[in-house]
């Protein structure tokens, strides 16, 4: 048997844990068509049966309120999964069943996974799952997603639902006399006119009309304007009557009755409490300290700083390993490949370019692991809770925190998923302000640039500098958000209604899957976009080659130098194999030869297309203390920020002709006469604020709905960045740095 199973449930009900437990590594992350909500699919096999499991976005309801809800709803309607496994948090049954009722009302074949029964039990909640199953008319299976307990029983129950052809339980909840009569009339009308009945169940359509559901109302008007108008007039009639008699409206009354229905079900022997229902649980005790007025903010700073120390201290060793590996690969190619353009492209373009990016994979993995831990443990929601008041000042929303953090608010995210994370924000204004400012955060691709510069110029204060960089980007982003919200995107703020989930120790497997997903996205980007760009940039930096008169001039210089050398030294240089020790005289001669080579390479780079662009921009960039090499790198960074390090690497290793000595780029910069700490600082500021990478711009365009905002972010950000770095450099210079 092959069937599709949809997993649905509230956020924080253990849905993802169950999904991971069922599918393990056999999962695939994609998007729902046309939108940026993540779609996870996986395969589960049991006794030779193959189940395609789809993890729907976590929602509290099925209104047209948020994109996640619309996506979940459309999926259920259009894809018609064989069964919907509704994961329900047993310790939070009342609210969780609100969604369950809506699935059943939709006519979905539902099977309930009563999850975290162990936790409910420890809280003194006892649930008679058989009674619940009888009352709702759907199977209920107790599970513990964390340990995987009960998952086979669950799938067996789901199979029974699958095989029970056509035996869907119709649940008709009473919404009080006024609404019920209205619903009956509307249902009859819908049946008669065949009004969208090919896609939607008739009762459900009537209910959605009564609830004033934007999506359905809009669809109805397009499909059959006449019937739609008649339905709307019935709703209006009912609404007027309710307004007069009970001073309320259909939508509110429907919600009241739904909760009333749930309470009546629960009271029929389904749930029993022992001990005080409102006593403080471990989670509440932790919150007494963690969101405390005084301790809370301090702990928050501590946690974020701790994350840095964790990331930078423990990733050092694996970062060194990957660097050594790419160094070795470069050496191998250099030793065994015949010289020429292809060789230098492979070494300078491919290995240095991609290696520079992949070298940071361990660092990014550690960072993602830390963020996943904070996210899954429930701490990030507390951060949103504590910071909402602050964010509101800047015209944003407490939930903007998530988008900022994903983008690199705790350094090491990515603006692409960050921009996409703004989808959870309903208000177009706050969303726009958030998605235009999240690219200022220190994404995983800017990190290597900062790490490189900090290692080269501020090595003693590494963690402190990285922390300062993060703070500066936050301040910048918030101020810009405020600026935008008071000028180009003015307007009211949106609701902040959010659950604080109980603290949970994340499962190691969940953390690893989470970390790997994000790291893999980074690696994929590095392996594809960055590889292509590295090669293109290599070409831009190689062609056109120096004109012959210049190359002959350099050759003449070399000849002249050789001519002055004593025969013994010249002979030694001629015959010296790669690794032999040279005499002092020969070494001095070689250094002078290398200087000529470097000068030639530099002249060649300056002569190339990229060099001309970089040199052309130097008149401007000199104000910020940046030279033409950096300009080339920054132009490359437009395509993807990872390219900045890669290009700097290429730019400098092209001038570096001694392959035996594999000096790291940061050492080269630290020794270079054009560089000093102030230059590094100016570049850090520029990289932090200038135009988002091309992929981010594309996302911004898609999310904001017009190219106008994409262009805005490129132009505005670059002007802002240039102004700031010029200010930093000029003030610093006057202050004598």
């Amino acid at each position, binding site marked *: 048997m092959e069937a599709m199973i949809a997993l649905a449930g509230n956020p924080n009900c253990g849905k993802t844990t169950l999904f991971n437990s069922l599918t393990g590594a056999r999962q695939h992350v994609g998007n729902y068509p046309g939108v940026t909500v993540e779609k996870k699919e996986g395969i589960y096999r049991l006794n030779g049966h193959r189940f395609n499991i789809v993890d729907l976005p976590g929602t509290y309801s099925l209104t047209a309120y948020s994109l996640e809800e619309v996506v979940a709803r459309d999926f259920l309607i259009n894809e018609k999964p064989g069964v919907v496994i509704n994961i329900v948090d047993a310790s939070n049954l009342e609210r969780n069943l609100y969604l369950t009722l809506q699935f059943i009302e939709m006519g979905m074949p539902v099977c309930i996974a009563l999850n975290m029964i162990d936790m409910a039990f420890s809280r003194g909640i006892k649930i008679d799952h058989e009674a619940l199953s009888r009352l709702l008319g759907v199977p209920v299976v107790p599970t513990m997603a964390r340990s995987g307990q009960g998952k086979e029983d669950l799938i067996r129950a789901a199979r029974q639902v699958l095989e029970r052809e056509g035996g869907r339980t119709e649940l008709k909840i009473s919404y009080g006399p006024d609404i019920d009569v209205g619903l009956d009339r509307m249902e009859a009308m819908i049946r008669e006119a065949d009004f969208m009945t090919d896609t939607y169940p008739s009762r459900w359509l009537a209910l959605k009309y009564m609830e004033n559901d934007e999506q359905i109302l809009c669809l109805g008007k397009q499909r059959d304007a006449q019937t739609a108008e008649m339905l709307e007039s019935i709703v209006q009639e009912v609404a007027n009557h309710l307004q007069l008699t009970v001073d309320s409206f259909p939508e509110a009354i429907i919600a009241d009755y739904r909760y009333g229905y749930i309470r009546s079900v629960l009271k029929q022997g389904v749930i029993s409490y022992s001990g005080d229902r409102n006593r403080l649980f471990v989670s509440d005790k932790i*919150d007494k300290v963690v969101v405390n007025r005084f301790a809370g903010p301090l702990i928050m700073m501590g946690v974020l700083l701790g994350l840095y120390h964790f990331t930078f201290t423990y990733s050092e060793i694996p970062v060194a390993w990957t660097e050594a590996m790419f160094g070795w690969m470069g050496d191998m190619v250099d030793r065994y490949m015949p010289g020429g353009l292809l060789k230098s492209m492979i070494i300078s373009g491919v290995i240095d370019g991609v290696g520079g990016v992949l070298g940071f994979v361990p660092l990014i993995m550690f960072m993602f692991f830390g963020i996943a831990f904070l996210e899954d443990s429930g701490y990030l929601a507390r951060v949103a809770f504590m910071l909402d008041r602050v964010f509101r000042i800047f015209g944003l929303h407490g939930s903007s925190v998530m988008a900022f953090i994903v983008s690199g608010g705790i350094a090491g995210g990515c603006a692409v998923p960050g921009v996409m994370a703004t989808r959870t924000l309903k208000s177009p204004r706050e969303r726009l302000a958030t998605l235009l400012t999240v690219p200022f955060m220190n994404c995983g691709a800017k990190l290597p640039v900062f790490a490189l510069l900090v290692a080269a110029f501020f090595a003693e204060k590494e963690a402190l500098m990285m922390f300062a960089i993060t703070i500066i980007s936050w301040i910048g982003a918030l101020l810009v958000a405020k600026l935008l919200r008071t000028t180009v995107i003015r307007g009211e703020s949106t609701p*902040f209604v959010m659950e604080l989930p109980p603290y949970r120790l994340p499962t190691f497997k969940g953390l690893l899957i989470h970390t790997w997903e994000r790291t893999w996205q980074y690696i994929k980007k590095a392996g594809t976009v960055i590889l292509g760009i590295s090669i293109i940039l290599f070409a831009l930096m190689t062609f056109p080659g120096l004109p012959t008169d210049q190359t002959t001039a350099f050759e003449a210089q070399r000849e002249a130098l050789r001519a002055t050398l004593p025969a013994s030294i010249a002979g030694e240089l001629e015959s010296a194999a790669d690794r032999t020790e040279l005499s002092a005289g020969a070494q001095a001669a070689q250094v002078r030869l290398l200087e000529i080579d470097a000068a030639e390479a530099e002249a060649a780079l300056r002569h190339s297309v990229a060099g001309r662009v970089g040199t052309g921009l130097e008149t401007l960039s000199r104000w910020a203390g940046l030279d033409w090499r950096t300009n080339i790198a920054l132009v490359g960074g437009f395509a993807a920020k990872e390219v900045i390090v890669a290009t700097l690497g290429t730019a400098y290793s092209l001038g570096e002709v001694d392959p035996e000595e594999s000096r790291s780029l940061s050492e080269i910069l630290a020794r270079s006469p054009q560089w000093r700490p102030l230059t590094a600082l100016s570049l850090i500021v520029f990289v932090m604020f200038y135009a988002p990478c091309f992929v981010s711009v594309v996302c911004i365009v898609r999310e904001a709905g017009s190219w106008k905002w994409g262009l805005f972010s490129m132009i505005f950000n670059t002007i802002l960045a240039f102004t700031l770095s010029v200010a930093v450099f000029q003030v610093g210079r006057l202050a004598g740095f």
Partner: protein
Amino acid sequence: MPRVNMRQMRSKQSGTIAAITAAGELGRRIRDMGLVPGTRITVQGRAPLYDPVALRLMGFTLTLRNSEADFIDVEVDD
């Protein structure tokens, strides 16, 4: 039982929701989370900057801004 606006509730004070006056998006969101007339709530605390407020209801914790609590009337216990 005195009826007050949720904003006026003290920390640790309990009561029963009497009315939700919000409509539209905010009203829908509030109701979806179980804040309907008849629900028992306790004010668990407030964020370090006194806003948003954290509520305890039906065994979970919900947070909302004071400006949103304005739409909720509660019959407090004492």
